[in-house]
């Protein structure tokens, strides 16, 4: 499953990083603690968070996550968005809260 595939199924808005929409999704990780994500997220995960600042992209790039989903309608800050385009790691947004979107993504990945 690619990032592109989950956009319509989960009704996500693409904020940035369009060139990374063909990235392969291997799993997901939901957390707002950056060290927790650094220590436990895996390459190819979709990272679900409410953090919108640029450090999110530093972690996303170092961990090589497939994409980021911002919850509750949050949008990336301007410099976060730029970095997402540079790194070609998409940032997606959903009006849903973390519990709901995590459940939906889990169901998609584990039918």
């Amino acid at each position, binding site marked *: 499953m690619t990032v592109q595939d989950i956009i319509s199924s989960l009704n996500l808005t693409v904020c940035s990083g369009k060139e990374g929409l063909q990235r392969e999704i291997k799993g997901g990780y939901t957390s707002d*603690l*950056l060290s927790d994500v*650094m220590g436990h997220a895996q390459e190819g995960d979709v990272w679900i968070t409410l953090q919108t600042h640029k*450090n999110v992209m*530093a972690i996303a790039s*170092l961990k090589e996550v497939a994409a980021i989903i911002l919850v509750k309608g949050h949008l990336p800050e301007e410099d976060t968005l730029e970095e997402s385009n540079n790194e070609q790691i998409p940032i997606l947004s959903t009006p849903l809260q973390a519990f709901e979107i995590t459940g939906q993504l889990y169901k998609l990945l584990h039918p």
Partner: protein
Amino acid sequence: MEFSYNIEGGNFSRAGSASSEVKKILKQLNVNPSVLKRIVVALYEAEVNVVAHAYEGTMQVNIDPSVITVVINDRGPGIPDIELAMQEGYSTASPEVREMGFGAGMGLPNIQKNCDELSIESKINEGTKVTMTTYFN
């Protein structure tokens, strides 16, 4: 091979840039991906510690065919009780830093888990020196 990077205290917009440079080099050297992933976690946490707690620092990287040694030296407040600082969940980060999702007290434990040898020396009101070693095989 030796490389050195400067780390700016307090500048979160550049946090992770030194780690990212080292990651690129290690990728070019075809370091085993699972070893590379561990090194990257340890590097980033150490870099962020300098940004969050110190005034300035350097990351010195020494790469041999079988081992990578990274020394992160900072000028800063130092760590009064290293054993306490190593405990998961213990943090002295400011409320602002915590709001960004840092300061969960997981940084040093993450470093410990993700390198083979770790040594921390610290002097109050002078700074901290973190040395981490990881073997490629």
